[in-house]
């Protein structure tokens, strides 16, 4: 199955610090998985209306996104690429975006 690149949002309170760091980690993790994706960093309130496939952020923020995007991933350590890759692999397989 081919599909357009996933629209992935990394979110934080302001949208210019933590979320940017997480974007870098997410890009690396998705590259490892071979998943085509466009990753954008943004703030929590903007993310609600951005129609994303995947939203990644801290538990502090991801709770309010259940149902907003098909895949919502909660991250504790923003710099742990391997842990994020494992989480993404599991969730993307669940929705059929990764075989």
């Amino acid at each position: 199955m081919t599909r357009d690149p996933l629209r992935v949002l990394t979110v934080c309170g302001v949208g210019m610090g933590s979320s940017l760091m997480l974007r870098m980690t997410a890009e690396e993790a998705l590259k490892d998985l071979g998943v085509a994706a466009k990753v954008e960093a943004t703030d929590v309130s903007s993310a609600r209306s951005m129609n994303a496939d995947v939203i990644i952020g801290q538990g502090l923020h991801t709770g309010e996104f259940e149902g907003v995007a098909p895949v919502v991933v909660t991250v504790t350590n923003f710099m742990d690429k391997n842990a994020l890759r494992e989480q993404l692999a599991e969730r993307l397989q669940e929705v059929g975006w990764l075989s």
Partner: protein
Amino acid sequence: MAELTQAVLAARVDVVVTGWQAAIEAACQPLVDAGAVEPRYTRRCVEMVEEHGPYIVLAPGLALAHARPEDGVRRVCLAAVTLTEPVRFGHDDNDPVDVVFAFGSPDADQHVGMLSALAGALIGGLDDELRAAASDDEARGLLEGIGDGG
């Protein structure tokens, strides 16, 4: 990366602080001293955590303090401190914190390259290298080298 060397203003090791607010203030002080941000920026960085919670604690032991461009940023800047005694930000998973970065950007774009480099360096273990640094100069050198890859 020449622009990165200009942005890195200081790194201080083994700083003694009494709490998370003082840790943010210590990380921001070099930015104020260099005139890269207005003095009010430091207070705004503390208020960001008061308003939005401890989301700036990105990883175990590690915080990235910042406020917004309109909070008095004149140019892109970055500094770091390591703490003798870790402090608690109230983060469920990543407390206590003993490495604090502070950055500023005058708009939504100018810091993107710098933070990408910082993220890459942190994925590679920069935080532990800073913890092990024996002097401010050594720590500053590590910070200035984040854009060099590896």
